[in-house]
């Protein structure tokens, strides 16, 4: 057939019509849409049998009971355990994000050694060999005390094993990160002559006078306190929140009382003064058990009249009297201290002044009051077998001078530890273990801390994540994260109840990591000799079971043990002539050329300290705190006007310790003259969801040593702010 133009056109049109009505077209159209509904790069989660595993969260000291929903063995969701005594079903957003930590792509996947500037994956055997070689050398050189360990806490059997390992090697330098607990312990020991920590029965208190304690920011047992706060409405309990910034806690309080930063102690003493002058205190209690009251009364009434206190603190005199009266009127009023989450030690004077309020109320060891929870380790450890080297090394004075005549009643001082390392030219520490701590990020003046760490020839990190301190280590022996491991968690979060929780593995380890307890036991065995003999257990699980003794049965069965409120309901002796009168008043570092006071603040949605925020958590953070990679300072419009700054401007912020470019957020919820910056931002490292975002406020701050305690008591620092 000859195809002329006409038939060609006809054919063409026919073809078009054919294609249009042909099922192929319709099928392809349909198929393409079905393809978009099943894009291979959009994951389809596998289904399977649903189970729930209970364990205890240890992302913070709250130690909430959690229930992990699993699908065919795969954890998919964290929920709170309804009947767990700490949190009764609630969970905080960090705990809810625990699975993001589990699968965090920046987790350390196996033992690693640093060669030059790069990391090399090595075997566990090789890693242990390197540690042993190093420690053997220290011991051969008769300087085992140059081994030190930095841990978040000394509570629980895993820190216990670290401490024990140091002891067996011959070092007394087990250092813990400072926190409000250290200062509270001092207060209890000085004012009551007892060895314990306060447990605040906020659940039953009808008036809470909080001196900057972030009940909602994560102070104490966070979720427990969220619940305490929520129940106030029904209980008719009042909350007064003293702090320069309108925090989430202040927002939910009955009254926000902005006081100049650093004057909290003065305000507390001013309230004491009103109570004493008006005879609004428990005179029976004070007369019966107090000593030094006369002196105290004279001091506060002469020095802290409401007018004078108002002048110092910026809180109106009438308000001071009103607070004092409300507090005095309450049945079970409690005063608490420890700024924000309480992750800094704080000032001894401030804590003592606050506790004086509790004593004036006579609300000690009573329902709704302050219980003195005696410090007792439930674990029954066998004696450590120390050889000569160990005994000699262990007897050497601690580097941080804790327990020395200078600072007799503290057990450890992390700030002093690093200060001492920086003080000498030859490093007094040759090997440092870092466990569950991130001092290179979380301590003030991080630059100085990093310098100190740099000076230490051999740093071994036990971190699960590549945090700032792990980045500086020479060797990493990575630990399981909490969902992968067994561990006892003795409650230590300012609650009156003593709760020991048991963290249990809910999933097989995702990476080539170990339970740090096992790592220590393996290390000890590899060291051999007396050291090995001090660690007779097959592994950590066996160790825990054995040292837990009687407790083990109920612990393993129920997942936690609620120990009896072991404090006797007796009224303790009170020494009013306490540190409130004698200790230093802490001032912000910096001279008058710095016009503003910079304070760090904890934010419930931002993890700080050793924990780095999860992607979910960062997602919830306001764009007035973090925008792109810029961090903000929050200032009052009055301050801004003086500095010629407006909302969203860039500003140059400088302090005696450092400089940063920040964005400005104007808020009526902050005192004029104060600038606040969120803690927990500005991480470094590979985690693209968190690192490089905002500023680590610790870079701008410096420690201020409280001469009464030897701990860091800085609440902020002076700063200059100008348009950038």
């Amino acid at each position: 057939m000859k195809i002329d133009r006409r038939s060609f056109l006809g054919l063409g049109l026919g073809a078009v019509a054919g294609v249009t009505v042909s099922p192929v077209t319709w099928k392809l159209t349909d198929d393409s849409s079905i393809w978009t509904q099943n894009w291979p790069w959009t994951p389809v989660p596998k289904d399977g049998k649903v189970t729930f595993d209970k364990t205890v969260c240890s992302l913070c000291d709250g130690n909430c009971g959690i229930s992990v929903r699993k699908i065919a063995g795969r954890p998919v969701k964290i929920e709170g355990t309804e009947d767990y005594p700490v949190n009764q079903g609630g969970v905080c957003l960090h705990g809810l994000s625990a699975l993001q930590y589990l699968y965090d792509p920046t987790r350390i996947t196996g033992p690693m050694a640093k060669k030059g500037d790069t990391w090399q994956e090595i075997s566990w055997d090789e890693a242990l060999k390197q540690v042993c070689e190093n420690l053997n050398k220290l011991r051969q050189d008769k300087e085992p005390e140059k081994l030190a360990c930095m841990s978040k806490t000394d509570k629980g059997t895993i820190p216990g094993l670290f401490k024990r390992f140091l002891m067996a090697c011959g070092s007394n330098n087990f250092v813990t990160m400072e926190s409000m607990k250290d200062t509270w312990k001092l207060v209890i020991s000085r004012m009551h002559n007892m060895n314990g920590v306060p447990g605040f029965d906020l659940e039953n208190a009808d008036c809470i006078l909080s001196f900057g304690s972030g009940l909602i920011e994560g102070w104490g047992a966070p979720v427990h306190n969220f619940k305490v706060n929520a129940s106030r409405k029904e209980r008719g309990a009042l909350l007064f929140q003293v702090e320069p910034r309108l925090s989430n806690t202040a927002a939910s309080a009955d009254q926000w009382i902005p006081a100049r930063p650093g004057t909290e102690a003065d305000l507390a003493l001013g309230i004491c003064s009103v109570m004493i002058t008006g005879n609004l205190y428990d005179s029976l209690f004070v007369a019966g058990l107090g000593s030094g009251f006369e002196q105290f009364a004279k001091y506060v009434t002469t020095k802290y009249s409401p007018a004078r206190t108002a002048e110092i603190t910026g809180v109106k005199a009438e308000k001071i009297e009103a607070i004092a009266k409300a507090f005095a009127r309450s049945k079970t009023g409690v005063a608490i201290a420890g700024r924000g989450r309480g992750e800094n030690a704080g000032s001894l004077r401030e804590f003592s002044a606050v506790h004086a309020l509790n004593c004036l109320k006579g609300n000690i060891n009573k329902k709704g009051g302050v219980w003195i929870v005696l410090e007792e380790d439930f674990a029954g450890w066998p004696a450590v077998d120390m050889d000569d080297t160990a005994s000699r090394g262990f007897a050497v004075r601690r580097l941080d001078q804790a327990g020395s005549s200078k600072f007799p009643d503290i057990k450890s001082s992390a700030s002093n530890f690093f200060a001492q390392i920086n003080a000498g030219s030859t490093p007094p520490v040759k090997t440092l273990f870092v466990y569950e701590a991130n001092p290179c990020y979380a301590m003030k003046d991080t630059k100085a801390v990093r310098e100190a760490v740099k000076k230490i020839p051999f740093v071994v990190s036990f971190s699960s994540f590549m945090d700032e301190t792990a980045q500086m280590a020479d060797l990493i022996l990575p630990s399981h994260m909490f969902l992968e491991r067994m561990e006892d968690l003795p409650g230590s979060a300012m609650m009156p109840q003593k709760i020991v929780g048991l963290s249990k593995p809910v999933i097989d380890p995702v990476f080539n990591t170990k339970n740090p307890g096992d790592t220590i036991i393996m290390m000890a065995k590899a060291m051999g000799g007396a050291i090995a003999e001090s660690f007779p257990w097959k592994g950590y699980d066996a160790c825990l079971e054995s040292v837990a003794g009687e407790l083990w049965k109920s612990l393993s069965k129920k997942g936690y043990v609620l120990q009896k409120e072991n404090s006797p309901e007796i009224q303790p002796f009170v020494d009013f002539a306490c540190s409130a009168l004698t200790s230093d008043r802490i001032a912000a570092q910096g001279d008058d050329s710095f016009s503003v006071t910079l304070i760090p603040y904890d934010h419930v949605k931002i993890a700080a300290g050793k924990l780095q925020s999860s992607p979910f958590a960062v997602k919830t953070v306001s764009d007035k705190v973090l925008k792109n990679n810029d961090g903000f300072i929050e200032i009052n419009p009055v301050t801004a006007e003086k500095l010629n700054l407006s909302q969203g401007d860039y500003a140059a912020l400088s302090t005696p310790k450092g400089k940063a470019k920040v964005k400005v957020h104007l808020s009526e919820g902050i005192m004029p003259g104060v600038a606040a910056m969120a803690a927990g931002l500005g991480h470094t490292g590979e985690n693209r969801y968190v690192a490089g975002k905002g500023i680590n406020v610790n870079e701008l701050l410096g420690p201020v040593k409280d001469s009464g305690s030897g701990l860091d008591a800085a609440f902020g620092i002076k700063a200059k702010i100008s348009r950038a």
Partner: protein
Amino acid sequence: MDSALIPKGANRCSFPTFAVGIAVAAVFVLWGVYAMGLCWLKGLNQTNMNDYYGFALWIWADLAVIAIGGGAFFTGLLKYVFGIDELKNIINLAVVIGFICYSSALLILAIDIGQPLRGWFIFWHANVHSMLTEVAFCLSLYFSVLTIEFLPLILENRKIDKIPFFHNLSHNMHGIMAVFAATGAFLSCFHQGSLGGVAGVLYARPFAFREGLLVWPWTFFLFTWSAAAYGPCFTLTILKIFEKVTKKKLVKDSVVYTLAKISGWMITTYLIAKIIDTFYWAFVTAPAAGFKMMDFYSNNGFYGIWILIAELVIGGIVPAAILIKKDWREKPKLLVTAIVLATLGVCINRWVMVLQVMAPPVMPFDTWALYYPSWQEVATSVLPVAYAVILISLAYRYLPVFPQEKELNPE
């Protein structure tokens, strides 16, 4: 070179000159196609839209081109239904412009949706309550009508016309064109209206919401009316550009004046309705939701009250006045001023009814949202303009778009 294709007796520039012009436009087309490819392959993250601006430049472009393309249906209506025969001299241009506008709108819609391959769900799973469904149906149907209206013109090409089949087809189609024009006008009334309804039905967005008649908010009628009113001004604007570029008179003044006058009166009546609507909205509808009129205009410079004045006075009352007054509309400069201002006026209206709707907060504690387009959005919006230049140039060169051209430009 291509003289065999050029209408008999028409004078056209040399092929190389033409080719260069087309090539310049083609560069913009390519730029647009590249941006379009990015949007399809990488997704709408290529735009500056966000969850507050789900509707932005593209939807505006759709609404605007359809409004100014409204000259096609309205001129068709006037000619075929109301029998103003004189308009046959400009109807081809109106149809070509309409075809371009509607095809552009469809293309932009195909880029604008997050799942282009599922775009047909709008037909398959249609929700009869949704204005967008109405838009989709009427838009596609009217586009088919426009294609049919465009076809006879193509068939009149010198070469094609030589084929008896096409010659006859063309002849027969002319015969029934009135039916299509009437259908088109009907469909247009609906989709222009439903485009207006898109914003007007948003009863939870007080800036947009209007009460109305049955299921149709007042914006439904206002959009239809304004498209009919302003569309011819755009047709005339294009005509004037043509005449400027070709340095030829292509349509007789009488035709232009007729259309301009009709447009003027349409705009006038529209404005009366629009102003009443604005007052009713400002003093009854919005306050019922707790808003003062100025709440919508006083946060930032961009959405200041100037935009309302620009739309209603500069782009409305001024051109309307010029067009209805014989002396004025017959002054060439004033005429051009009027038709250009009117075109801008209706474009501002469409902008306001899309983008300003998204800007003010509804929850009292929410914030204003402002937006500027990304280059990809701009490029894909320039694409139809460049495509229009090419298509309209081709049409002019090879098709007898202007029946009066020969008469007005004797050799």
